[in-house]
């Protein structure tokens, strides 16, 4: 699975890690939904650390879309809200 960390680039994460990443990702989503700044920063850091740990960087000249796109570690809850604000564009 290809994952992008905004501002850092893309990594290839083994499919065996998907479950654990999805759980960490859900935790971030919950923090966003609950407007919990502290939980957001912590859960995002945990998710990014895991991605960096298990992922291998994609070569610069590879052009593929990512399955997960994650904010950078210093992103604020407000910035992520803004990022998700275009949600209307997505069908369903």
């Amino acid at each position: 699975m290809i994952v992008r960390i905004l501002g850092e680039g893309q990594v290839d994460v083994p499919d065996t890690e998907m479950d654990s990443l999805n759980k960490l990702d859900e935790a971030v989503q919950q923090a966003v939904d609950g407007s919990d700044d502290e939980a957001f920063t912590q859960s995002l850091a945990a998710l990014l650390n895991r991605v960096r740990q298990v992922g291998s960087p994609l070569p610069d000249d590879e052009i593929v879309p990512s399955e997960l796109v994650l904010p950078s570690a210093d992103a604020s809850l407000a910035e992520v809200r803004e990022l998700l604000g275009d949600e209307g564009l997505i069908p369903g």
Partner: protein
Amino acid sequence: MSMGRRIALIFKAKANKVLDKAEDPRETLDYSYEKQLELLTKVRRGVADVATSRKRLEIQMQQLQASSDKLQGQAQQAVTAGRDDLAREALTRRAAANQQLADLQTQHAQLQAEEEKLQLASQRLQAKVDAFRTRKETIKATYTAAEAQTKIGEAMSGISEEMGDVGMAMQRAEDKTQQMQARAGAIDELIASGALDDASQPLGGKDDIQRELDSMSAGSDVELELAKLKGELPAGSASAPQALPEATATEEKK
């Protein structure tokens, strides 16, 4: 749905919007390539802008450090001369200069991190743009419009995600640089006002503490000269004033 998937879909939706507009999807390849080259130029300029801001901060940091050192020296000089009031004033200004310096060091570290990120983003984008050009030519040469659809979709959503990422990094860096420039302007004004002392001003320009210290040392120079002159008088000169009664009388008349 998880946050990461939602953001990924937002990026894909943006790429699809561009694709949907074109009658022949192959046209979007050339259009996108133009946009990529534009972005690449912008990013390079962005890196240069951040570097300029960083250098400006470095000059200010040097100025503040020089002020701080100078004020420290003045405080020592004042204490030696028994002028605690002047020493206190110098130390107070030094504390203010040091506070500004500490703030600038933090800003500088942030700006440097931003610059490095942008530099890497620029390299990544360059590699991707080169790869895209090759892929675009292959797709155009090999497939009919209908066949090319899937290949183009992949290439377009991949590259537009990258462009979106780089675009946001640029925006962030620009915002930081603007904040920094406003701040740098404020510090320049503060230095110019003399509130933090200005060690960078041209030679001969002196602040009020220095002026007072100088006049004190000028005063003690006079005392020294006087003592020296007294020492040079011949032995038994203690009676000298009595030997010149007329001169003294003349002085008193004035």
